């Protein structure tokens, strides 16, 4: 805590102009916080916890998608615009797989769901991961030494391509996604409840995130990833296969996004071919908010963006939420480009 205060103070008194800019930033945040607290106070506890539950579930999905952005950015400094669409692809693929696995709405419930759902997750995550590895192979790897602009443009192109393919496949409609999660509310304390659905979403997301963190911190491939992110050339000299490591990063990121797509479908019961781009941008905002390139940062950022999202929806106006999220994106990049947990990286 003390170090954080010191760091904040240091960032305020760096230079006169920076301090002025930061003062403006703090003022805006303070005004927003006071306005929100006043509304929350008026709304009462029950409504607040309900909103918080929505926010945490939404945030868990954001976090899953944000992890993919942050891992890819951490390792090759590329904003993988196609990532949001890989996420939607996960929802679309799982929708197509459901009849194959015997997952029909209303005919299957309870414990019988567990095995087919597990299968659904594994197959979808695998397909999404392979698609993303393919994208990296085709669109990013040949351009690794090209000017920075080039892979960004192909990333946008890949995003459009995926959206187009999904649009051709299922049309530009809101598709119904079957509802398998239980509908009841879990009572917590004093009349405050949380939806069982939200709890399940959060639990699945947290399991996946913990698995990822363990993998990156403990496994040999995870170590290779961290080494590659730090210094590609040095990592290569140490005998790390750079291409394989980068492919593995894309693979894991997309697997998480695919899982996120299924969870999104199960939670909202509706998907649309063009959802992913917007959603990806929110997730990217979350990654930037937490500190791009930082894995716990992405998880934290995702949760925070989810909560901000639901508070804005619940206490202010739905039509201003998107403006708020993109405002936060610009705000963070201008005032604190390293995000909440990120470190200052020198420009290469």
């Amino acid at each position, binding site marked *: 805590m003390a170090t954080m205060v010191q760091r904040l103070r240091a960032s305020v008194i760096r230079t006169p102009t920076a301090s002025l800019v930061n003062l403006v930033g703090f003022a805006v945040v303070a005004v927003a916080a006071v306005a929100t607290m006043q509304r929350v106070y008026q709304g009462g506890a029950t409504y607040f916890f309900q909103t918080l539950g929505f926010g945490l579930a939404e945030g868990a999905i954001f976090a899953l998608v944000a992890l993919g952005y942050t891992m890819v950015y951490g390792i090759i400094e590329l904003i993988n615009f196609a990532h949001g669409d890989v996420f939607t692809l996960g929802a679309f693929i799982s929708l197509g797989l459901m009849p194959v696995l015997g997952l029909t709405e209303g005919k299957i419930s309870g414990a019988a769901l567990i095995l087919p759902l597990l299968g659904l997750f594994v197959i979808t995550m695998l397909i999404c991961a392979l698609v993303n590895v393919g994208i990296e192979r085709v669109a990013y790897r040949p351009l690794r030494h090209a000017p920075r602009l*080039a892979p960004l443009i192909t990333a946008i192109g890949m995003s459009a391509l995926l959206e187009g393919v999904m649009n051709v496949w299922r049309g530009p409609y809101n598709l119904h996604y079957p509802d398998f999660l239980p509908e009841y509310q879990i009572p917590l304390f004093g009349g405050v409840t949380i939806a069982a659905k939200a709890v399940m979403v959060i639990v699945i997301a947290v399991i996946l995130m913990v698995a990822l963190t363990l993998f990156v911190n403990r496994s040999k491939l995870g170590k290779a990833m961290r080494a590659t992110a730090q210094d590609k050339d040095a990592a290569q000299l140490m005998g790390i296969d750079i291409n394989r490591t980068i492919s593995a990063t894309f693979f894991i990121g997309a697997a998480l996004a695919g899982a996120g797509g299924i969870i999104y479908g199960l939670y909202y019961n509706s998907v649309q071919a063009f959802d992913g781009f917007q959603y990806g941008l929110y997730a990217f905002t979350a990654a930037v908010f937490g500190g791009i390139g930082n894995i716990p940062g992405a998880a934290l950022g995702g949760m925070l963006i989810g909560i901000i999202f639901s508070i804005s929806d619940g206490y202010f106006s739905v039509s201003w939420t998107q403006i708020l999220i993109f405002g936060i994106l610009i705000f963070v990049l201008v005032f604190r480009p390293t995000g909440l947990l990120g470190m200052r990286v020198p420009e290469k």
Partner: protein
Amino acid sequence: MTRAGDFVRENMRNPNAIAYFLMAVGALFYPIVIQFINGGNGDFLVGLAADGGIYVLMAIGLNVVVGFAGLLDLGYAAFFAIGSYTYALVASNHMGVTPIGHSLHVPFWIALFIGMFVAAAAGALLGAPTLRLRGDYLAIVTLGFGEIVPRLFRNAGIWTGGVPGISALDVPSLPGWFQGPWIGQNFVWVSDFRFTSANLTAYYVLMMILITFVVILVHNLQSSRLGRAWMAVREDETAAAASGVNTVTIKLLAFSIGAATSGFAGAFYGAKLSYVSSENFGFIVSITVLAMVVLGGMGNIPGAMIGAIVLYFILFKLLPDAPLQMQALASSLGLDSLNQSNPNGWPGIAEVVKRSQYVIFGLILVGIMLLRPQGLLPSQIRKQELKHSEHEPLATPRQLQG
């Protein structure tokens, strides 16, 4: 005469000169040829070309930002929206509805420049705090800005007309103009000439004049000190800064000039459509213009123009017609079953073609970047840069000859 001959001889091998020449000739003869082919009913196509000119203008502007200065701007449509809405506010009755309570009717010729300056100011305002950021962060900031601006216009309620937008904008007018056989009338002098939707040729001519104006302007900028500074910043920002280029100002200028061009095009768009709505300025517009610049050749003005013309033709003429043509083709081949939608999820061939617009975008962006990163009509300097990796020498003598 000999001087003209020398000029021709000098530029005969210059692809840019040829492109400019072909585009100028094409622009001159397009309305006549179209009217002749369609037996005088080609007004729609002439109007379509005038709308295409809006994209050409935007491509020229985005080329300044992306091609000259190397800044990726993914929210370019925001400035287009700002230009349009500015025009809508200063040249319609709408201001009377807002709390200001007094409507403005600035003539088109002045409002065009107001739209331009407001967009440029917005560009400077966005750029000033964000251009210090590294390239990909800038792309994201502009993307966020591009998402915010149309939503702000939609949410601003009474100020911008909300969801329905603002309609009945003033059309351009001139104190007088010639009418002649080119629109099927006798040669007459018309006083108080108004650009109406019945006279799309007038819009076409106006558009071509605006494009010529902007091309000359941007071309001069490119070969000025500023243009060289842009190139230096694009190639190596650190080296440029070390050589005394004020990189932030230079980038800000590129950003604002790009925004100004977009605002300029936006004002024209508002006037021609006589209507603005926040729905018309989404991310799709930004990405379309980017695809045009990439397709044509980043950093080359005629390249960006040709990219704009080609892609505009594909998107707004070929694709809208394609569903019906595919349907006709399928029937003539005896494959009528392809035209019907069936319960297995096949929506009919017309629908499939209609949906594949994004696939085409994606293929253009990825394909061009991988196969011909310099674009259809490349800039000779940029070509070297885009084709060779940073680990190779930038240009060996043999490549320089080519």
